[in-house]
């Protein structure tokens, strides 16, 4: 299957760059735009959206609770 992967890039008037990755699920998407982030400078903010949490493979999650 061929997948369309997109990045929407907005460059503010002061040169700050906002990158949105589309069509890439799970943790892969962080790697998908990493080359660009590294080439441009320093990442100042990162926000994960719902698609990030659609994990491509089942993952076991362990929750640990501590009480004081």
């Amino acid at each position: 299957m061929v997948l369309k992967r997109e990045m929407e890039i907005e460059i503010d008037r002061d040169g700050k760059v906002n990158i949105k990755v589309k069509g890439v699920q799970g943790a892969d998407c962080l790697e998908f735009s990493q080359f660009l982030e590294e080439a441009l400078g320093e990442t100042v903010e990162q926000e994960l959206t719902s698609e990030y949490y659609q994990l491509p493979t089942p993952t076991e999650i362990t929750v640990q609770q501590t009480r004081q």
Partner: protein
Amino acid sequence: MSHFTKVQTKITDLDCLKQALEDLQYICREGEVRVRGWRGQWSQADLVADLGGPYNIGFRKAVQGHYEVVADWWGVEMRAGISQAKFVNDLNQRYAYHKVLSEVRKRGFSVAEDETLEDNTIRLVVRKWS
């Protein structure tokens, strides 16, 4: 949509820097060049943008690998009417534009959309099938 990232641009690519200065209509000189300041004082730089007067704006490669802007801003603003904030912002935006295009093309993306919005934000959509 998967994630958003905000990146603060750092100028490291000399070719993109020169393209950005060209977009902003500056004439550049490279090599053993000097940034000129008040009363003939000068400082060494790797690249200068001429302003057609006694002052100019220089770029010097820092040890960390990025280019620093060097200028006698008081003189530049008085004689050429260019403020540091406006110059640096405009330059960062044009630089980021060229750097983004150069990097995404290297990775096999095609540019699907390229526009400047009303508030002067540049918006690009790049695409790849895999």
